[in-house]
């Protein structure tokens, strides 16, 4: 018995390392492959500028999907992200007269309130996350229509635009500011998820919520904080989107509803919860973004893009997310 266990550690350790790699790294590999493919088909795409613009688009999707990642990791989902983005963006642009920072804080506070509402209902009233966040999404839509006057919105403040679409010189090239800032945000969040007690508890709750409760973890409180954070991140995404694209509309958040779930799933997270990283979500967003770049260039039409999105999600889930066989 002891002889066998001496041989096992080395081989099993290697297996564990490779097994842990794939889920988060393969989206980046696929992105790389798609980028090169684009370059082969249209050499003009193979430029740093092209890379940065796709990456910026992906980074925005990734930020919008950050809150979704946290919701899915804990075994839930956030279908109110669409209108959280809209409400936050509108709040931001309605309050800039008090200063950009105050406007930002108000927008984030709105997001926190949304998250608090979701979290309380899901954690305390035990309403299914799908149902509650759908209800919240509807509620927010009503608020968007009732509480905001589009004619009263201000232009995006310069500093907001600088921090998102403004260019920063790095290593001799210019990249959109949102890239390093977004990356820092995602890495920081991931560190919180992977290296704090709260973050690991979130993963445990997503994998085995009954076990977490029976081991004495304060599951309700941890869930609540998770949804509040999702709300805040959704609000942040709303501000970023409004700042980067310098426009708002009633439906500005809609593509991020299913799009955020798609990015998280393609990034390797399990839809059931318990696994997934923000970096993986970034990878998923990059894949989706690169497809969105390739499609018009190859003159394929937006329908093909949607078809490919669907096919990619199926492929990822078929590779990593199948349920156990029953017999």
């Amino acid at each position, binding site marked *: 018995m002891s002889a066998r266990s001496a041989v096992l550690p080395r081989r099993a350790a290697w297996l564990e390392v490779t097994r842990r790699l794939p889920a988060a790294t393969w989206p980046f590999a696929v992105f790389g492959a798609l980028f090169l493919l684009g370059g082969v088909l249209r050499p003009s795409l193979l430029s740093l500028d092209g890379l940065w613009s796709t990456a910026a688009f992906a980074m925005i999707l990734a930020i919008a999907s950050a809150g979704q990642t946290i919701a899915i990791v804990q075994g839930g989902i956030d279908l109110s992200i669409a209108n959280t983005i809209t409400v936050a963006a509108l709040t931001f642009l309605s309050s800039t007269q008090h200063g950009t920072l105050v406007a930002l804080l108000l927008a984030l506070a709105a997001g926190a309130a949304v998250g608090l509402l979701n979290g309380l209902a899901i954690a305390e009233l035990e309403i299914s996350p799908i*149902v509650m966040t759908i209800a919240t999404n509807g509620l927010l839509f009503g608020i968007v229509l009732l509480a905001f006057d589009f004619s009263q919105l201000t232009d995006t403040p310069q500093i907001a635009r600088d921090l998102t679409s403004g260019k920063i010189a790095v290593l001799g090239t210019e990249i959109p500011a949102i890239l390093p800032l977004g990356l820092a945000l995602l890495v920081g969040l991931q560190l919180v998820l992977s290296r704090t007690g709260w973050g690991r508890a979130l993963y445990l709750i997503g994998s085995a919520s009954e076990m977490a409760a029976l081991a004495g973890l304060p599951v309700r409180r941890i869930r609540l904080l998770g949804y509040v954070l999702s709300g805040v991140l959704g609000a942040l995404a709303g501000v970023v989107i409004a700042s980067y694209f310098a426009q708002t509309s009633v439906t500005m958040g809609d593509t991020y509803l299913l799009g955020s779930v798609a990015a998280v799933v393609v990034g390797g997270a399990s839809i059931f919860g318990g696994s997934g990283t923000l970096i993986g979500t970034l990878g998923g967003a990059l894949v989706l973004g690169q497809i969105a770049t390739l499609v018009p260039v190859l003159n394929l039409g937006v329908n093909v893009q949607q078809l490919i999105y669907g096919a990619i999600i199926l492929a990822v*889930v078929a590779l990593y*997310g199948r349920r156990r066989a029953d017999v």
Partner: protein
Amino acid sequence: MSVAVPARGRGLARLTDGFAGLRRQGAITPLAAFAVMLAVYTAINPDLFTRIQLQTLANLIAPLALVALAELLIVLVGGIDISVGAVMSLAGVIFATQMEDHGAGVAAAEALAAAVACGLLNGALVAYGRLPTIATTLASAFIFGALANEVLDRPGGNVPVEVTNATSGELVPYVPAALVWVLGAGVVLWLILNRTVVGRQIYGAGSSASALRASGHDPRRAQLAAFAIGGALTALAAILLVGSTATGDPKAGDPYLLNAIAAVALGGAAFTGGSGSVSGTIAGAAVLGTIGSLLFFAGIESYWQYVIGSLIIVGVVGLPALTRIVRGRRGAVR
């Protein structure tokens, strides 16, 4: 307990049985809610029972009720279908565009076939491919939406007035056609779910797939059947919508997704599977569909319907847990 029960006792037993069954499936609250809504509606707008208004209301509720029933089937087998909106759009544009050249009957058949095919694809991937339902239908939502856009990329199509009358007019005075369609579909679905083996298997698959297997059934077939029947219902919803709006629109079905899920939740179904009722779901859809109209007649800005609808959903779904907390008896760890 003796076997022989007098005839009248049997009938009464069946009634109390039915009531207990509805209560168990969570249908009492939405039915009560709808009754209340209807009462309030009539109070605010006594003209409700004119022919035009009955038709308008029925046409408003019917597509949502049918899509909600389709969603109910998937929830019963323990999953959630995010592609119902896209399937509805696809069936709708097929119906709208094929009518001109092939007539309404053929067009309807094609729409039906397409929707059932979508359902079978979803069902095969979930049941036999063992893929998670929510991720699969997320992917298929993209795919079916793209297909819908391929068929028709902007609102259009040619809908003759006979079709509109058949779907959205009146069967007989004071009885809207849409109402007949919904109730008819509801009755057929109820019969399937409660009086056929496959229907019972659908409940069984959601309740406990392993137990179902131990009884010699194959849960996969039940799941496939659920998706296929759901597809048929979605097609009917699309046909009614196209009939009443007299256009085909590749994005028409999208808003119905979230409302269908909300209607199912309002209807008392358990999202873990195995529990839910046709009548509760229709009542849930009716409540959601009526809010906007009710507000309009009450002179309240119609945007409030989103707020009120959401509050109703949270209230109804959260009620059991809320009463538990208020009574100081927090639930056990589950």
